[in-house]
């Protein structure tokens, strides 16, 4: 887990790589890799790669990056973990390949030499890398299937620059900071910036599950090698109904397999523990996988003490059940106030989330952990969100009226025209007829922060107009449903995994954890696990998380299973009211209105920062 950077002056008219710029980009990511740094610049000075290292596998100097192949023809800078690197290494050694280190990085070099860009199909893990092939005179950029690890690039027409963070690219000083309206509109609609956009016109995210070649004519077409939608569509659910025991056994084995892979490390692996099923079950499975000592950490807030949102008591019980060394870390409003400037500085792209991950990662770092397991992804995999119920219901109810041309717009205008309708109820209700009849529209309603008609007052008329045109929100949502899964569960799972989880949860986890030099691993965001579950009998979908809760040898207590979902929340609502530095939202009437959701106010503050 590290920070990667690179510059490729591919165009004949471009200046050679500026070493100082490369270092500025690289060292902006010092927190991602405090244990070491390196750089490599080609002989003709047209290519430069940089790396900041957080040592987790093969802690020796031999694992330093950028790493060059023995023949000097390939160079790679890599961020992430390849969990199946040992198996790959054995297979590569059987083909006569000789290794110099114990790292997963070297596996990438040999695997590329064997398979070319198709290598990505063999990798199990989270990764983003830039690999220079001096024979092809071309650079390969690649990102893991789910987009756990970030990879951004800026192509100005002469030179391509890439890095693990948007702000690192800007820190280099040569990337335009012109704003991208589509990125801002996306942030206001979804609460996070949807890839491939960023809030900067010149900087784009390499989409999850994609590769990109850059050669002397510049960036080629992005090739997608994995999509969640494809997996759901191609899966053939077992037809014969399985017994509950068989189903449970299959799910347990797949989960345990993923957890085992995610424990591969040369340093201790801890875990975030909440009062929910996902993290609790993973801790149980870590124990089943044979991990002797498990350090767990739970966040608690004074404001939640004695209320249902307080995760500490149940988390402590789970910790006792699985015998972990447990820490409850209390976060106060004062600490939030102190950390706020650092949070906003570390926030790579605007988002309404990530605060919780910031504090829990900080706590894990204080405990000396370099790696922590997170239960992120459980809701997407096991249908834990209300959207799995609400979105299909909404589509079913509104599909026919939604098809009547113009009706949705008329209804929306009438309702919003009734004098601040939004203050009277759910501000999204006015869009029900306009959007509710399709999966893309219903999902926008479910996950939307602001609605398209709110944007002008938040980001201005011109940015809203241009951004809506460039982003095309419904087409953006619909695009992840290609191919389109047949089942309602599949469609919502794809939407949640490819939009909310990818653009918000995973991205926030990355910046908030890496700011504390902590690697967060997500065993529930794993392609092999997904493949297993999508081919399991369809009955697993109705059992949702009970299967997960019962997967550890010692199942989670029933009070955890039956507890209503609270999410991983912070008391930001109150903090927003009181912190004088973040009161700009009061100047916008729509945000100052009493029933305005706190997330809208926070979004406004984040955008203003």
């Amino acid at each position, binding site marked *: 887990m590290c920070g990667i950077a690179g510059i490729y002056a591919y165009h*004949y*008219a471009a200046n050679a790589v500026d070493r100082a710029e490369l270092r500025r980009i690289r060292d902006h990511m010092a927190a991602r890799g405090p244990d070491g740094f390196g750089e490599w610049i080609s002989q003709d000075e047209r290519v430069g790669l940089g790396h900041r290292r957080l040592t987790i596998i093969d802690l020796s100097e031999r694992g330093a990056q950028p790493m060059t192949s023995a023949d000097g023809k390939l160079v790679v800078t890599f961020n992430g973990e390849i969990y199946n690197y040992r198996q790959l290494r054995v297979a590569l050694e059987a083909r006569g390949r000789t290794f110099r280190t114990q790292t997963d990085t070297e596996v990438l070099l040999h695997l590329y030499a064997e398979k070319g860009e198709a290598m990505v199909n063999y990798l199990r893990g989270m990764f983003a890398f830039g690999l220079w092939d001096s024979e092809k005179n071309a650079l390969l950029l690649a990102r893991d299937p789910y987009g756990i690890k970030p990879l951004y690039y800026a*192509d*100005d*027409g002469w030179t391509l620059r890439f890095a693990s963070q948007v702000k690192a690219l800007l820190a280099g000083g*040569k990337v335009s900071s012109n704003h991208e309206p589509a990125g801002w509109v996306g942030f206001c609609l979804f609460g996070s910036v949807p890839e491939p956009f960023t809030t900067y016109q010149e900087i784009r995210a390499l989409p999850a599950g994609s590769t990109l070649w850059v050669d002397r*004519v510049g*960036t*080629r077409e992005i090739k997608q090698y994995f999509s969640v939608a494809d997996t759901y569509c191609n899966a053939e659910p077992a037809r014969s109904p399985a017994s509950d025991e068989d189903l449970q056994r299959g799910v347990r084995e797949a989960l345990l397999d993923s957890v085992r892979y995610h424990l591969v490390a040369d340093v201790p692996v801890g875990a975030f523990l909440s009062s929910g099923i996902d993290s609790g079950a993973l801790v149980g499975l870590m124990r089943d996988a044979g991990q002797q000592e498990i350090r767990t950490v739970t966040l608690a807030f004074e404001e939640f003490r004695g209320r249902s949102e307080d995760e500490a008591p149940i988390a402590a019980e789970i910790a006792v059940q699985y015998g972990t060394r447990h820490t409850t870390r209390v976060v106060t409003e004062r600490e939030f106030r102190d950390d706020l400037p650092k949070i906003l500085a570390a926030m790579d792209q605007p988002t309404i989330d990530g605060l919780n991950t910031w504090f829990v990662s900080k706590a894990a770092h204080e405990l000396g952990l370099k790696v922590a397991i997170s239960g992120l992804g459980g809701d997407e995999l096991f249908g834990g969100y209300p959207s799995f119920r609400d979105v299909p219901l909404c589509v079913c109810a509104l599909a026919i009226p939604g098809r009547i041309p113009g009706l949705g717009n008329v209804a929306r205008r009438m309702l919003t025209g009734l004098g601040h309708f939004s203050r009277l109820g759910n501000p999204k209700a006015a869009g029900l007829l306009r959007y509710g009849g399709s999966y893309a529209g219903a999902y926008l309603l479910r996950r939307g922060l602001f609605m398209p008609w709110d944007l002008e007052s938040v980001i201005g008329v011109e940015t809203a107009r241009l951004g809506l045109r*460039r982003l095309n929100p419904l087409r953006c949502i619909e695009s992840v449903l290609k191919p389109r899964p047949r089942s309602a569960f599949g469609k919502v799972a794809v939407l949640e995994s490819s939009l909310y989880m990818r653009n918000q949860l995973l991205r926030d986890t990355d910046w908030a954890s890496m700011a504390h030099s902590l690697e967060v691993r997500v065993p529930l965001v794993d392609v092999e696990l997904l493949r297993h579950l999508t081919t399991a009998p369809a009955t697993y979908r109705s059992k949702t998380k009970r299967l997960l809760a019962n997967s550890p040898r010692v199942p989670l207590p029933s009070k955890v299973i039956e507890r209503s979902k609270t999410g991983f929340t912070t008391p930001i609502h109150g903090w927003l009211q009181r912190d004088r530095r973040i009161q700009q939202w009061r100047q916008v009437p729509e945000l100052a209105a009493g029933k305005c959701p706190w997330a809208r106010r926070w979004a406004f503050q984040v955008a203003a920062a």
Partner: protein
Amino acid sequence: MPVGTALGLSGGGGLNAMVGPSLRVLALVTDAFGGRGGIAQYNRDFLSSLATCDQIGDVIVLPRASATPLDTLPSGIRHLPPAQGRLAFSFGALRAAWAHRPIDVVFCGHLFMAPLAAVMARLLHARLWVQVHGIEAWQELSRLYRQSVEAADLITAVSRYTRRRLLEWIGIDPARVKVLPNTVGPRFHPGPKRGDLLDRHDARGKKILMTVSRLARSERYKGHDRVIRCLPQVFLHHPETIYLIVGDGDDRPRLEALASEFAVQDKVRFAGPVAGEELPDYYRLADVLVMPSTGEGFGIVFLEAVACGIDVIGGDQDGSVDPLGDGALGPAINPEDSEELVSAIFAALRKPATNVHGAARFKPQVFSKHVQALVCSHFIARS
């Protein structure tokens, strides 16, 4: 049945027809061979390079402006008579497509022709290549133009700045927008100062600042006034310096008046229009080409000046940064900052010219190679 097929104009199977080595290109341009000005020069360089590509069979050029084609055209170029006026040009394009079918690639040499080119490409089932030059692509155009450009398989912009400005208002994968800068021919090279020209402008023994451009009221962004306004300060420290303005146009009286206003009229020389053949000699007269412009699509004069071995100073707010090599070939200053301009001029006057090999990166051979690479990557490899 597709309209193009019905009309008998179809490219004969689109992609499959492009697998073969000989693509036929229909180039719709404002002017090229025999034309004057930067765009005509660019088109000539580009079309000549295109015609030499291994994968290109022939290039049919339909210009819009009336011009006298050169007696000898590069091999592979077929130059049709110009068709003036929108309607005549559109019919001319259809006629050319019919006469020379099948057409594999439609090249659109100017953004304002993009709607016609997009329709032609669609009718012909051909690929569309749109070239954008400068200021015409910097502002958002109507939906018709936007969608026409978005339909392109490849867009080439003359500079990174123009590319960026275009990408501000069109919705297209940026990977489809490449930069293809101007090139500079071998006649621009370092050499001695021509004595007769020095005499003509009473410039013997003097340092010469020079600007080369049209003096058009519509192109005041070139920045002659910015230079004139800082001349008193320059002359104070470098009294043996003159400012030679090459070019002519309807803004000249205003600039002459401005020179008088700042009491530098004795040292500001207006050379008037200079024939293309004489231009390299004029560059060689100068010690520094200075053009603090804010509206250059690329700024070919910087490149020509650098190729002639003289120092250059340009602005950092437009396409000028490309021929200036981001400052590697000459300082890119904030054109609105007179102090920065004066400092850059002082620095340039104090040192001997250093740009002897500066323009090598833009030489025609490299340009041609890149055109070929673009053809291969966008019209061959994808087939």
